[in-house]
């Protein structure tokens, strides 16, 4: 292994390892669907949140939701309600809960649980179609959930 490659691996590992103050998916406390405590202890970055929301392999929120504040996103879906004004309808804690695992708020929701690692039927290794063993990495990291939340909190009426 070249030195540069070793370094890249070390950086990747550091990125994958949860920060000390991070709440693991199984430890998240939902109260009527809401999650009061930050998953990272640090405020999220709304710009990074937009990236997560518009990237297919990450949150891909725009597959199902229109966000008028993001007019450059081509072909937003219309499966869920538009997220315009979401922060006027829900508290920060409620939104954190919806983004982490909406099924605690909307029973049986079609919206995927982004911060969950097990309890799946025939879980696959991402989009390969091949089997994966639980626990899986959550679809989004704690930091990515907080980043998305930071952006959604800007969506006020």
């Amino acid at each position, binding site marked *: 292994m070249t030195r540069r490659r070793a370094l890249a691996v070390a950086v990747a590992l550091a990125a994958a390892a949860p920060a000390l103050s991070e709440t693991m998916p199984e430890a998240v406390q939902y109260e009527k669907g809401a999650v009061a405590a930050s998953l990272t202890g640090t405020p999220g970055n709304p710009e990074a949140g937009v990236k997560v929301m518009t990237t297919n392999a990450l949150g891909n929120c725009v597959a199902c939701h229109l966000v008028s504040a993001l007019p450059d996103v081509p072909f937003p879906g*219309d499966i869920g309600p538009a997220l315009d*004004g979401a922060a006027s309808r829900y508290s920060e804690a409620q939104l954190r809960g919806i983004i982490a695992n909406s099924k605690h708020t909307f029973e049986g929701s079609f919206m*995927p649980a982004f911060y969950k690692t097990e309890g799946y039927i025939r879980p696959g*290794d991402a989009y390969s179609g091949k089997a994966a063993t639980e626990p899986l990495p959550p679809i989004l990291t704690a930091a990515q959930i907080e980043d998305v939340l930071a952006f959604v909190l800007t969506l006020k009426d």
Partner: protein
Amino acid sequence: FALALPLHATPVDDQLVIEGENGPVEIVTEAPAPVHLKGVLETIYSGWRFRNAETRALERDDFDNPGMVFVDRGRDKWNAAIGAKGESCASCHGGPESLKGLRAVTPRVDEKTGALMTLENYIDTCLTQRMGLESWNWTSTDMSDMLALISMQSRGMAVNVAIDGPAAPYWEQGKEIYYTRYGQLEMACANCHEQYFGHMIRADHLSQGQTNGFPVYRLKDAGLLSAQKRFVGCVRDTRAETFKPNSPEFKALELYVASRGNGLSVEGVSVRH
């Protein structure tokens, strides 16, 4: 607050008459839902009704339908002396029109053997037990060419698969799979194709996921797709471990999904994006 009405909540209003070699064939793309879907769906629609105008146009005339090439190739294969003793499909069956109607009633439980048979299973039985050949790969071009040729013989006929009697246990199994939320995205066929058909999932206009159009010429792949190959793609998209083509699970699912389209026309070879 009121939700804005989705832009494409309904299938487009359009009619399909295909200009073919032997004159126009009317295709039923909208029909009352079969009785077993009572309380679930009122009307069933072909996937053709959810595609854009350009894609729909390609299916109106066989001259424009890129899938017809595969039908011609299937005909060549049908007549070719490929068997261990020089037999062709034609030497036992005569013309492919002898299989008229079969596509509309498969998958079905074979009366003689009691096995659940897809069209592929029938083709495979003749290859391996009657012609002394190896199986064709389920997703090979040989197989999809032959599917295209046989399916064309039933163009315009109503899908009418049996769900009772010996088919019942397979149908129940398929139904269970249809409503199971697979994979890390926890999505069932029913979520996309029953609950949210007519909506946009990103750039895709969700249809009811009917199989009456199969095999499908898919513009994205520039190739023919069998129903079970489509199922593989849909399950993979839920971040799930897929089932394999010709697995008992996908055979049962193909029967169940076909039964949701009882009343729609077999399209022969359809065109989707």
